[in-house]
């Protein structure tokens, strides 16, 4: 790893202006009491001390709607489309960095998804260390995601009061300072200050799960037949908000869109949700996950077990967005804790 940089806060706005010359810069912005990732013009637009953005920054890697191919209907031209906009995403929280690491694995495993890869290649990720936990719904400490994972960021920023300590993740991250002279190389006392800042933070981060993250895959496996799924289903609206806001949800639909003269068209990918009725519906009207209980179970199994089986990473990073979004208060903290409580109470109940 390259030695870290120190950026005085007074130099921060100038650095953003400097980046704006070569990149589209996006970051967390305050909007009606929420935080939303959007394009920023100056450093003033940024809200780095934010709770949790409504939609995670995954929207810059897997857009809500993305044209995959464009074609003429007669088949004479079929062209794949890729993102080419060089973007810097500022202020990505550590849980979201973990989520990006998971998306990297999913979209490269087996078949490489070149559209995701193009976004990743053109998108520079600048992480931002949380020094206080965001809201009562987040449980990053329990999930082990309150520190930055190494392979997901290009730069990672730690606020040290008067200046920023900036860890270098990649060469292209470091290159963001090339030609900018307001930044210094971190010295030993800077490292000591940084470590002090980090070790102070843990007391502000409570564990919110009763179960250890390493036990979650097994807990879910054993809870497959739990009655709890039906209890969740009774109140679930099947609205799909929990999956739309989740940084590790990536299920998608692909549809064709045609111009009205029936000459050209495009194949478009857009976010889908396993919580909506038609997700597993096939010809003949057979629906393989017809009940809301089956869908709630699938969602939590995916988060807690299936993605772990597939990638080695637990699919929930503890950001709490789904809990904030849900109108009926279905939350991963309550769900995991309740499943754990039942498992502890009657281990034989789940055997059946």
């Amino acid at each position: 790893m390259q030695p870290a940089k120190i950026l005085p806060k007074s130099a921060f706005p100038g650095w953003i202006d400097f980046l704006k010359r070569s990149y589209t810069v996006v970051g967390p912005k305050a909007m009606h009491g929420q935080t939303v990732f959007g394009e920023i013009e100056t450093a003033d637009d940024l809200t780095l001390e934010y709770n949790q953005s409504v939609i995670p920054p995954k929207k810059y890697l897997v857009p809500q709607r993305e044209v995959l191919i464009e074609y003429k209907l007669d088949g004479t031209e079929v062209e794949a489309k890729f993102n080419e906009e060089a973007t810097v995403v500022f202020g990505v929280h550590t849980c979201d960095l973990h989520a990006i690491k998971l998306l990297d694995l999913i979209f490269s495993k087996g078949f490489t998804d070149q559209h995701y890869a193009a976004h990743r290649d053109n998108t520079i990720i600048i992480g931002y260390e949380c020094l206080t936990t965001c809201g009562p719904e987040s449980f990053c400490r329990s999930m082990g995601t309150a520190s930055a994972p190494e392979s997901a960021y290009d730069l990672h920023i730690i606020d040290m009061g008067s200046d920023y300590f900036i860890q270098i993740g990649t060469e292209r991250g470091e290159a963001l300072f090339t030609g900018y002279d307001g930044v210094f190389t971190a010295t030993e006392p800077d490292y000591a200050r940084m470590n002090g800042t980090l070790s102070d933070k843990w007391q502000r981060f409570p564990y919110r799960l009763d179960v250890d993250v390493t036990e979650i895959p097994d807990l879910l496996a054993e809870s497959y037949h739990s009655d709890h799924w039906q209890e969740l289903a009774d109140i679930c609206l099947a609205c799909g908000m929990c999956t739309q806001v989740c940084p590790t949800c990536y299920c998608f639909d692909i549809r064709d869109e045609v111009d009205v003269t029936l000459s050209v068209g495009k194949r478009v990918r857009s976010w889908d949700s396993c919580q909506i009725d038609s997700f597993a519906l096939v010809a003949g009207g057979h629906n393989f996950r017809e009940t809301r209980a089956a869908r709630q179970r699938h969602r939590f199994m995916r988060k807690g077990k299936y993605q772990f089986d597939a990638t080695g990473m637990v699919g929930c990073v503890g950001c709490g967005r789904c809990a904030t979004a849900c109108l009926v208060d279905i939350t991963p903290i309550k769900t995991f804790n309740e499943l754990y409580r039942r498992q502890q109470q009657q281990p034989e109940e789940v055997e059946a």
Partner: protein
Amino acid sequence: MTSLLDQTRFSESIYKPTMARIVDINDLTALDRLFTVELPDGVYLDHQPGQFVKVSVLGVGEAPISISSSPSRTRQTFELAIRKVGDLTGVLHDLQAGAMVGIRGPFGQGFPMDRFKGKNLLFIAGGCGIAPLRSLINQVLDDRGSYGHMQILYGSRSAADLMFKDELHEWENREDVELLLSMEKADIDWPACTTGYVTHLFPQIELDPRNTIAVIIGPPVMYKPTIAQVRNKGIIEGNIWLSFERRMKCGVGKCGHCQINHIYVCRQGPAFQYQHVKDLQEAM
């Protein structure tokens, strides 16, 4: 020469189809048509029986369709048996020979022919399950010496719903194939046709359970009762193979639509060993 899979995988995008020409269309039943598709020059299909391709009509959409021709009879052209059930399949049925369709694939895991060699084979098809099974049957017939006894049980609603009638007659006439039909309405003059479901054929067959591989492909409702019959004959779980249909969008393990519990049907299936899926609640 490039295989279609390489073409799909290493072109700019895994979602970009290779345009192929429909060279022939034949009616199989009122709802099913057999499409012969020809890949562009220099591209060939290399597949296992049981694998599928994603077929698309530009401007309409894409659907997974099993390859119905056998690898032994497939190179630049291959066959798809398609039932008209909805949006895309409806448009496909309106196409004429000469029309272009997009093809990606072949995707998924087919049946491991090497493991079937030397064994007796019990093939069981319900309804349009015969389309993928035909790929397997013809592969065996073209390499008949490598396999043991072969029994085909095919359940259909009525004579009008039977697919591949010419081939059925051929199989019927072969010494080395035992073909039994069942029909809910047995309105056909056929040497071995039973009224009822495919499960009603089991009392009529004899087999050596230890050396027989059973392959079952049919509509969702068929699996449980049929597996029960196969198990009843003494065939062990490891020798029972199935193929599943699910909603599929990407075909390459990304979109999440095809999942049965943790399994991606498009990548780990559609052909499965019963042993590996029997405990998955969402499987059957």
